[in-house]
């Protein structure tokens, strides 16, 4: 097939995609009632449009890196298309989070419009009518699947990318989408959040909120399993996996936010800023969010444990003492074990964070106040939910894909990424190895790093890359034209060594003469 037929076939699939989108929005007008065939036709044409376009985009080309025109294309280089998609996505998120009634959601009575359009699917999966969150979950999962297929075609030469993408598609479809829905169908009486056991604090920041804890405690064996699994994830499974494989085991293999970034966001990964100033901003922001969610969670637990209906049998005092001991031990272990690996500003931040958290716990314990620092846990959590959960991770995180890149939330906001990243930086076998002296400073690795890491600045010095923010997507290694970068796990010692100059020069041997 020559270039021109391929072009017209691609236009055909673009039109199909648009038809799917219009069908989806149709029930918002009064022109049609939400009918099953419209839903089916919409989801089908959307999927066929994206997958067909991708297939004809790449089918004529040999397997390999497909970045021609990325920085001249209007969509991927912040042109008119990029801005338009950004505005549309942002508008969608604002509607979803703050004006769901515009989508047809009704808090009382049956929903209408776009939300009602998803009723048949919702009935099929969980036996109940759709909510705006079901609509969102369906579209979110569909996006990961169809753009996942696109990614698989694009990177069909790389087994690492194929397996990793298969993994994010599997976890999104199976664990995040289908499983909770099907469990609802099987156990309609147990609360939803008793069944959501891919849950992991602090990404799922509501894990320790009273309603969520009660959901799990009241959810029978399933709920207790979810609670146990959640706690095990935080304190046992995650540290072990992060030690062995780096934070990538979660961020680019399992996580739903990561899944969307790696698939639908792939066209925008190159838009992340690599400036040193932005790196500084990133380190401040993400750790401030981490402190915020930690304090919010402590406040929530404090008030929960103080309520007369506390079902756990753990008193506030026992909890506070345990938390103080836990944080003190953790801080001491890091300080005495890894202090030398941290720069002055990181040490300062570490001690600062420790003092704030332990200090507030102590004040709380001795004052016995009902609220953390006089602010009600309800207020704190409301602000976190609005500012971080909705505005940051949703509106800014995904809405701004075409403007700021695909991992804005993961890089600047995700408290989970902060924790995993900190461990990855100080106690993990993971690193990106630089291949001796082969780097030619071309800049492809840095340009395509979705996390904004200036990969080249390490590679050209012959130094390995050990960075908190690296999610291990492996694209730097793919786009490197000289085979310089390899993601791998190995001994923790000497990971971060910095040679005086890259491998290849023997001049030292002559110095001795």
């Amino acid at each position: 097939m020559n270039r021109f037929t391929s072009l017209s076939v691609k236009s055909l699939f673009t039109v199909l995609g648009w038809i799917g989108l219009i069908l989806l929005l149709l029930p918002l007008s009064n022109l049609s009632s939400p009918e099953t065939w419209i839903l089916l036709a919409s989801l089908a044409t959307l999927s066929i449009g994206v997958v067909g376009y991708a297939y004809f985009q790449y089918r004529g080309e040999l397997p390999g890196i497909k970045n021609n025109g990325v920085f001249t294309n209007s969509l991927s280089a912040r042109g008119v298309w990029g801005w338009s998609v950004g505005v549309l996505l942002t508008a969608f998120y604002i509607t979803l989070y703050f004006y769901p009634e515009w989508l047809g959601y009704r808090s009382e009575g049956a929903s209408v419009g776009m939300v009602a359009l998803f009723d048949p699917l919702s009935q099929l999966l969980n036996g109940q009518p759709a909510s705006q969150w079901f609509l969102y979950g369906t579209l979110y999962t569909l996006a990961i699947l169809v753009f996942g297929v696109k990614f698989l075609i694009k990177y069909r030469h790389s087994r690492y990318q194929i397996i990793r993408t298969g993994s994010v598609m599997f976890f999104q479809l199976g664990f995040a989408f289908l499983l909770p829905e099907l469990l609802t169908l099987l156990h309609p009486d147990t609360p939803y959040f008793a069944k959501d056991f891919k849950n992991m604090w602090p990404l799922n920041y509501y894990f320790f909120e009273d309603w969520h804890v009660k959901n799990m405690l009241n959810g029978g064996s399933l709920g207790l399993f979810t609670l146990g699994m959640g706690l095990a994830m935080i304190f046992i499974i995650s540290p072990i996996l992060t030690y062995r494989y780096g934070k990538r085991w979660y961020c680019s293999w399992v996580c739903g936010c990561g899944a969307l970034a790696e698939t639908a966001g792939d066209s925008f990964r190159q838009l992340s800023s690599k400036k040193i100033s932005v790196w500084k901003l990133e380190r401040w922001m993400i750790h401030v969010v981490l402190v915020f969610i930690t304090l919010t969670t402590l406040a929530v637990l404090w008030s929960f444990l103080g309520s007369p209906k506390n079902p756990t049998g753990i008193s506030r005092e026992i909890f506070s003492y345990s938390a103080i001991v836990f944080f003190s031990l953790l801080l001491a272990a890091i300080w005495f074990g890894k202090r030398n690996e941290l720069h002055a500003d990181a040490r300062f931040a570490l001690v600062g964070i420790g003092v704030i958290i332990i200090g507030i716990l102590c004040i709380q314990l001795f004052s016995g106040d009902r609220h953390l620092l006089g602010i009600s846990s309800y207020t704190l959590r409301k602000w976190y939910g609005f500012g971080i959960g909705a505005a940051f991770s949703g509106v800014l995180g995904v809405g701004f894909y075409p403007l700021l890149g695909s991992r804005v939330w993961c890089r600047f906001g995700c408290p989970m990424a902060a924790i995993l990243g900190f461990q990855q930086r100080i106690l993990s076998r993971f690193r990106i190895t630089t291949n001796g002296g082969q780097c030619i400073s071309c800049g492809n690795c840095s340009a395509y790093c979705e996390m904004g890491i200036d990969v080249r600045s390490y590679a050209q010095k012959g130094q390995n890359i050990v960075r908190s923010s690296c999610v291990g997507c492996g694209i730097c290694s793919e786009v490197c034209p000289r085979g310089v970068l390899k993601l791998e796990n190995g001994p923790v010692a000497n990971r971060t060594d910095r040679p005086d100059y890259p491998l290849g020069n023997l001049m030292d041997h002559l110095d001795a003469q």
Partner: protein
Amino acid sequence: MNDSPPLIIVGNGIAGTTLARQIRKKSTRPILLISEEHPYFFSRTALMYVYMGHLTFEHTQPYESHFWKKNNITLLQERVTGFDPQKKEVFLAKGETLAYGDLVWAVGSRPNRFGWPGEQARRVQGLYHKQDLDQLEAWSPEIKEAVIVGGGLIGIELAEMLHSRGKKVCFLVRENSFWKSVLPTEDAALLNQHILQHGIDLRLNTELERIETDEKGNAMGVVTSKGERIQCQYVGLTAGVHPNIDFLKDSTLNCNRGILVNRFLETNLPNVYAIGDCAEQKEPVAGRRSIEAVWYTGRMMGETLAQTLCETKTAYQPGPWFNSAKFFDIEYQTYGQVSSTPKPDEENQWFWQHPQKNILLRWAFHPDTHRLMGINSFGIRIRHEVMHDWLLSDTTVETALENFPAATFDPEFTQNYQPEIQAAFQHQFSH
């Protein structure tokens, strides 16, 4: 403050920039880095990706602009026209002179031209400088068909660039295979086939006879040594490069093809040095050429001279040869010595090729001792550190094959072909 005349480095490519950076690590002496081409250091090898839209030009600059100020390295964009070694001054095109304490020439290369009729026409160029890239971009809308002359690394890069923008590319190669001067037959054949697969009109055993122009002086076609006429709106001349030293030919600096230097990278004049593409070793390192115009040797010369200029006189001693390239989708790495036509009593060669995929591994080893001499690898990434050590120790090819997985650098989950490769080798050499 240090008021002594600065170290002047002419040329801010990888050699000059490495020198400046490495000196700054050890010394506070004033450094002036002069370039006619661009105020900031950029990766020349990455220019192709700018044309292809993989990168913007800014991406090819490894350091943000505040880096230079922070490290107190003064930059100057200006053409240097000559120098006076007695007065220790360099001359700028504007007529100014600048005093130097030490002077380092790191002025790189220029594309070769062989006096082809029509080579001065519009839409005819070599590809080397940033200005060449800008020129190509400006001509690009006029180009539907392009002819590239010269079967080496820049030629295939230019072919890939033009092809990525939808231009029809005809690639003239004088020899019977692409990059014949460097690659053994089967290695080159793999690339010939890959070039054709990408839809490039590869014409082997074909030389450029002349370039035809229209009445306005635009290139509009070429005539080949076979008498064929090929219509085109652009001719890329990529038949190698030579040291960029024409402006120094009348000076007292000893030059041959390049600026002649001893092993300490010193020229015949006091306080004057030369590094990178423009330097020619009077006594080349054993087994190496006197001019090696590649990124890595430029970097190593910069590292070495920095020691000398910081009071530790150090001879240029590169380790085992290594290089890499990417030919469309095929990655290539080479380590040590792999001759294109080995002498039977000095170098034995053996290769393994995947029946379908673009993977080929060629081992060079001593015919008697089987000591590993070098490796060419297509489609398998090789771990530099391991190969470097193997080549410096007396590792046999058998030991290398046995431990081959340790020497690979492919991404995780990539298929390991060692069992097949080792079995094939044993089959051939076990008796």
